[in-house]
């Protein structure tokens, strides 16, 4: 039986009858620390979430819907003199409105730039490439990059590998968390909870192609209102993303709370050898379970000195400047 393709919109009422999941192992195109993945049995239509910053009112409905859908429990923090709450992405807050008060030097007018931060679902995902644990990070043919928590070892390499500084390690279970693009909703034909909730439809969801077309219309409207540099943020440095922004000032993404102008995967991760990372997991297995897993150790995976150094460098280096 043909399984349905990707959902085309987030504007739908979810089903309550049992549904077959649409995202299975047969739909993976990448799997962390896994060198030979069988090709997917079909190509799902690529999906994308488009965030039109110019329509965003910073209401945080996306954050609220995200918490409720994913059953997370972000901390009730202090006010530190800003609207951004919680203060950063956390293992319990996968998306965050970041508020920037920016005076446009050309007009001298204040612009309150409000950007919904969260996983960009890169076509070329740095987190997945950096991940040493087989199957802890996967990429589906529709573009979703998802964390598989059963396989996560909490090493934090994904955080370092991410050009957008998105994943966070839980202090409770020591696993990495981030936006799943609501893969559980997409799997049954629904769009992400944030896109459904967004009151002004600043967040919309559909096929990547449709989202690009929609972005073109929005950009034309913005240009007609005087935003000459309005444009689509779909950065080529990570081969494009499945979360895109319409920015009024696409010539300077960094003004939007340090959105990287030219994000790219760290060269360290790019030269990282996938096979090495697998060994890391095996070592851990030994440490945990002794000789039960002896057979696996027989496999010819060895950590080279070079890889070890690269890994040290990756995790110990300070975060890159975000401009």
């Amino acid at each position: 039986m043909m399984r349905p393709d990707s959902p085309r919109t987030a504007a739908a009422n979810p089903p309550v009858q049992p549904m077959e999941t649409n995202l299975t192992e047969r739909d993976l195109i990448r799997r962390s620390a896994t060198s030979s993945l069988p090709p997917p049995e079909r190509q799902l239509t690529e999906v994308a979430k488009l965030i039109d910053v110019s329509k965003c009112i910073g209401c945080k409905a996306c954050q609220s819907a995200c918490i409720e859908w994913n059953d997370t429990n972000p901390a009730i923090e202090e006010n530190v003199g800003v609207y951004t709450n919680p203060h950063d992405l956390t293992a319990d807050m996968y998306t965050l409105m970041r508020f920037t008060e920016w005076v446009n030097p050309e007009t001298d007018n204040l612009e309150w730039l409000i950007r919904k931060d969260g996983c960009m679902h890169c076509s070329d995902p740095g987190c997945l490439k950096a991940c040493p644990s087989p199957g802890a990070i996967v990429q589906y043919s529709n573009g979703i990059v998802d964390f598989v928590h059963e396989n996560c070892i909490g090493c934090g390499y994904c955080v370092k590998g991410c050009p957008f500084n998105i994943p966070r390690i839980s202090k409770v279970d020591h696993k990495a968390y981030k936006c799943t693009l609501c893969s559980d909703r997409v799997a049954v034909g629904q769009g992400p909870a944030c896109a459904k909730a967004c009151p002004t439809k600043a967040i919309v969801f559909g096929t990547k192609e449709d989202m690009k077309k929609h972005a073109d219309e929005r950009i034309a409207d913005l240009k007609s209102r005087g935003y000459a540099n309005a444009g689509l943020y779909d950065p080529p440095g990570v081969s494009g993303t499945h979360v895109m922004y319409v920015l009024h000032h696409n010539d300077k993404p960094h003004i939007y709370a340090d959105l990287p102008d030219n994000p790219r995967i760290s060269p360290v991760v790019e030269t990282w050898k996938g096979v090495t990372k697998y060994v890391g997991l095996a070592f851990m297995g030994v440490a945990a379970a002794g000789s039960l897993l002896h057979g696996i150790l027989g496999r010819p995976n060895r950590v080279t000195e070079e890889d070890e150094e690269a890994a040290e460098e990756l995790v110990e280096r300070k975060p890159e400047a975000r401009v």
Partner: protein
Amino acid sequence: MTNAWTDIKNTDLVVVMGGNAAEAHPCGFKWVTEAKANRGAKLIVVDPRYTRTASVSDFYAPIRQGTDISFLNGVIKYCIENNKVQWEYTKAFTNASYIVKDGFSYQDGLFTGYDEEKRDYDRESWDYVIGDDGFAVVDPSLQHPRCVWNLLKEHVAIYTPEFVERVCGTPKAKFLKICEMIAECSTPTKTMTSLYALGWTQHSSGAQNIRAMAMLQLILGNIGVQGGGMNALRGHSNIQGLTDLGLMSNLIPGYLNIPTEMEENFGSYMSTRQFKPLRPGQTSYWQNYKKFFVSFQKAMWGNAAQADNDWAYDYLPKLDVPSYDVLRIFELMNEGRVNGYFCQGFNPLLAFPNRAKITSALSKLKWLVTMDPLETETSRFWENHGEYNDVDTKSIQTEVFQLPTTCFAEEAGSLANSGRWLQWHWAGGTPPGEAQHDTWIMGQIFVRLRELYRKEGGAFPDPIVNLAWDYKDPGEPTPEELAKEINGRAIEDLRDPTDVTKVLVPAGKQVLNFSQLRDDGTTLSGCWIYSGNFNENGNNMARRDNHDPGDTGAYLGWTFAWPLNRRTLYNRASCDVNGKPWDPTRKIIEWDGTKWSGFDVPDIAPNAKPQDVGPFIMNQEGVSRLFTRGLMRDGPFPAHYEPFESPVDNVINPKIRGNPVARVFQNDVSQFGTSAEFPYAATSYRLTEHFHYWTKHNRVNAALQPEFFVEISEELAAEKKIERGGWVRVWSKRGSIKAKALVTKRIRPLMCDGKAVHVVGIPLHWGFIGAAKKGWGPNSLAPFVGDANIETPESKAFLVNIEPTTPPSEVVA
């Protein structure tokens, strides 16, 4: 709202002033972003703060809180001077041509007839010249010097761009830019919508703020049309309904009035409610007042309301003062003159101004009953919470009952949204613990009270023991039973007056709508304007057909809108005098030579000839009023007055403090601060992350906006050495609070009358119970004075001082 949320998509220009739609009504604001994205509409925001609505605006201008009338009168002046008037509309559909009595004038900030001692006007001269034929005298040429139009021109003459800049602090260039954008909407094919809320109402001149914009909308021809209107966004989910149903001191459901002592009997009550048309052939729909009143009395008292006892007129209380509104009752409470008080889903300890006075007043009650799904600060006003509620528990002798009610998820019924849609909802969850429906609680209290009066007698038991309460279970009337009673039914067979053999509605059946109500006691209806909500066709509020023929945003098959399922009020005014739409692309209804029809229920008799009958059918004139006669206490035109606590004097007449006819209790006079002592202009508001004092109980919303703060400019922060995220103390003549400082570029000092005015913004969502961090609200600081017409507290404009401080002791601990 005159229009509906979904109608906003049809507009060309959205003016958000006196509100913050994006933050307070995000899903309604969607229709603004739709209009922008699909129609190329523009959005203007005028606000003391650069809000989240402003963040998506096309043009923003700052304004000092409490000066909106100057701004709007300035725009009216601009439009008149630059001939940006929809002339055909203004001449035909407003009272511009009506001649005003000679005695009326305006001088030195006051209208004719002011009595300083009474703080009131003799409004006798604020009226039209009435001709020998009993009709108002008009001059359609608008040449007569005493016609409304010429008086209006004269009245707004002082509101020059320079005046606006001086009073409002709005830079002249920005003001003029907004004038230009608004003036474009004077053509018949461009419309503007006004979205406002408490930013306009919570002032001592609140009602006149709204009038000023309504007048502007009328001269631009924007009332009754698609994408136009005066749209009060409203607050709570059913505040529209509670008001429609008359849960106010002086109201009977459907905007009828509770009698005053002057109206000693039904005859004298009705004598001022004849509503004879002031121009030939006009509808003046309130001529049906008696039908609605008698039907209401029958719903209340059934057989005990008869013609020979004037329909139980004496069962109704009669007022000795205009109203026992919340300010008055808390004043009386504080004087020790109130013993018992019910708070049904209400948290006055955080909602009403001058919290110290509210605490003192509640402490003098003998008993207090609260009904709520959630804990409220009010129900625990007697509990000591350190700095956050520093009361002497032992000395408070109030007996308090805290009754747990169900919430929305656990009950069925209808709510009226701001677009007047009555939407039915269904229960889906089991109530927690012993929580009960409010209808059960009211039913249980009533049957017990009735039983006591039946058994023991007592003070005038008649209206209690005779109350019509024939529900299947008197201890809990069902929502369906109540909704049907609101709709109304025939008590006897209703016969066709032109053919008595024909029964229109058999006895016991639901009336179709209020057009079938009668003044002879043969019908009953709890709230005439809702009638049609639940008739023999069933529960129309539960209808769910979301088709939208013509793509107008009307959705006539979706639930039920009062009156008569009409979606846009005054929609007859969307057509010219001959009944053709001003803008054919935005047709609502049209006259086909014999009748009105279209995409909405016409707001006029279906066969009323357009040339004869005016569109404003509720007014005796048949037209709208640029000049309100004596209907408002503080003037027939809006005039500039400062808030009671203002950083600058009234530049028109420095002797006038606040609204000259607003009610001030003697005890509060000494509680007003001056700008010498309290130099900063404070304002209160809501944040999008929270709903009043409810969502602080919710872990999600508490995480999104966890802790009380105040917003100040970088300039004021520098001046007072206040750090971002540091603790500040803010105090007024009435109280002192501590908050985190949010230092922002979104608030800038305003230059008003030659001095820099710093604005301090105070959001209102924190208290001493719930998931969010403990805090205070602006009501600890706000003044105890209300609007001159309807007593809405002046919570949007008052004076404070501010300084850096140490954290509250509990935070340090």
